[in-house]
């Protein structure tokens, strides 16, 4: 069983479709969308419809803080740019997309929780999460402290179940580490291996759509530069 994990898609249809087909080509048969499906980008409706299709086939989908804001739940932590795009997103969403979002389970509400608390809180070998846009893997050392590791894209990491792992899969739709390639991760659960990927996609088209929708220039630039 291969589980493909996507986070922080942020209404970027070009990025998520490219990542999905990459994962499917590698044999992914399960999918998880880890929050922040909308916000910033110009394709909230198409992205939500695509994810809803996968959810109907059993994909795991959780709600992110941007998604909650799009449902009208107040969020003081959002930047002014983000809030502006949420208002725009709200106007795009129809009844169908709102109903889909409203039915999603909440993400862990405490975003400030340290990696250590997260690993302890979830009594399981693997935790996958989004929200933080950079790819990172935390692993629990024998002395009980989590150690951070910056994964090398495309290199499968043996992640034995006897240890605990917390993987931040990276942002599919809005990378911010000066690299404009989309992030996602693929977990081979049978062989206990986790691979992080960076996938080139048509960022120019995504940025063009952001500009055409009249969304802030800063957001289009971020897609082009990855920062």
């Amino acid at each position, binding site marked *: 069983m291969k589980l493909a994990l996507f986070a922080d898609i942020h209404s970027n249809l070009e990025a998520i479709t490219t990542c999905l087909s990459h994962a499917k080509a590698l044999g992914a048969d399960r999918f998880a969308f880890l929050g922040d499906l909308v916000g910033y980008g110009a394709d909230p409706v198409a992205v939500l419809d695509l994810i809803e299709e996968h959810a109907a086939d059993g994909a795991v989908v959780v709600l992110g803080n941007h998604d909650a804001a799009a449902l009208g739940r107040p969020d003081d932590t959002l930047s002014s740019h983000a809030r502006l795009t949420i208002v725009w997103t709200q106007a795009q969403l129809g009844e169908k997309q709102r109903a889909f979002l409203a039915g999603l389970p909440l993400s862990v509400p405490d975003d400030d929780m340290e990696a250590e608390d997260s690993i302890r809180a979830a009594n399981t070998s693997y935790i996958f999460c989004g929200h933080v846009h950079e790819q990172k893997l935390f*692993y629990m050392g024998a002395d009980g402290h989590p*150690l951070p590791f910056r994964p090398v894209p495309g290199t499968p990491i043996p992640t034995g179940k006897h240890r605990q792992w917390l993987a931040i899969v990276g942002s599919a739709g809005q990378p911010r580490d000066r690299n404009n390639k989309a992030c996602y991760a693929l977990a081979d659960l049978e062989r206990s291996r986790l691979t992080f990927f960076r996938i080139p996609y048509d960022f120019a088209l995504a940025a063009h759509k952001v500009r055409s929708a009249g969304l802030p220039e800063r957001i289009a630039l971020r897609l082009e530069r990855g920062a």
Partner: protein
Amino acid sequence: MQAFVPGSEVDGFRLGEVIHIGSMATIYRLTGSDGPLPLVMKIPRLGPGERAVNVIAFEQCRMVLGALPQSPHHPTLVTFGDVETTPYLVMEYIDGVRLDGWVHEAPVGADEIARLGSALALSLHDLHRQGVAHLDLKPTNVLYRTTGEAVLVDFGLAHHGYYPDLLAEELRYPVGNWVYMAPEQVVGIRCDPRSDIYALGAMLYQLATGRLPFGNPETKAQLRQRLYREPIPPRSVFPETPDWLQEIILHCLEIDARNRYASAAEVAFDLANPSQVTLTERASRGRRSKLAMLARRWLRSRNFEPAPCPPASDHTGPAPIILVAIAPGQVEDALFEALQDAARRLIAADDRCRIACVTAVPPAATLGGRRYEETATGRHIKHLVNLRRWAKPLQLAEERVTYHVLESDKPVAALVDYATMNDVDHVLMGGPKAGAPARLFPGVSAQVASLAPCSVTVVRSRAGN
């Protein structure tokens, strides 16, 4: 817990004789294996009284060895058992002689040390190019195949830049063999391949003198001495040690990793070309440093700042070796200058690179001619002078450029062999002039380009110049 004795069965494998008992694991020959490869099984020592690090080293060994491509320089990993139930590794059996066989006979002759050391340095370089540092080099972890190639074994403490380091914070004391450990390892740095160059230097020291450079430290305080103390120079211990070997050994054993050789390939190069080793103050160093100097270093060592780890290796590895092939008769023409320009650009791109100027000439008749210039030595010197003339305008530091006259009837084979033996990263050579008439047979540059184990740049002067 299952008892592992010869004759018992583990996951379908039958254990044979015990071939090695280490502090962390035991190694058994496997009997009755049907495959073409003779096998061993490594089982970590677990249970009461054993350390937790044994199982972490097992995981690390599995991860690193599993990631390495097949190579003659380390055993091939065949399969492994589950870490939670039956941890074991099944690996290729290496039919070879351990380096500690020579250590027991030390002092060993300089030629033999050069042969053993350069083979070991080449296999280390192969490892470093994969982004791996071994970090537990000692004479029992180095084997020599009958073909002369060195094989590194036991990757339990190795570090792979592409994988999480499971040993990172597990250890409250420096893990590894204290005898050969580099200063930065003493303070817990586990990402520097130059730590292996230090351990290599410590083993060369032992082979040359029959003594350990820092004895056998028993306490952490004794171990920390190497943060400020240099070893007694080999020639003061064993006066027959040649100066070039002392130079190489002390260059490997520099306290600050930045002052050591930048790559293991450079060590191999120097060991294979003793006459080309640039002798510095290290070669003639007589005794240990003065007391005042030692006191100053000791004070500084209390805040020992290890050098930052070099960036993860790319395909060429650290500090590339560039071979510049100069045709024997080549004088100061346009091609001569074009080669200088091309070399200048490579030097500007990587200021750690080394240049080996090479010319391949037909062997001279032993008796030679009547005049000095026609004798074998006379001709040899004439070619060396020409190589030096070529390199002079590059204004390189002495230790970054070497000169070699290869005597051979087959210039292509001589150049390609030389590039292979010395793990050269890039060959720079002149080609036929642009617009020159097509040849029936490929010229030297075309043949070298197709046969060399590395990148080859064929430089030509513009037609009409």
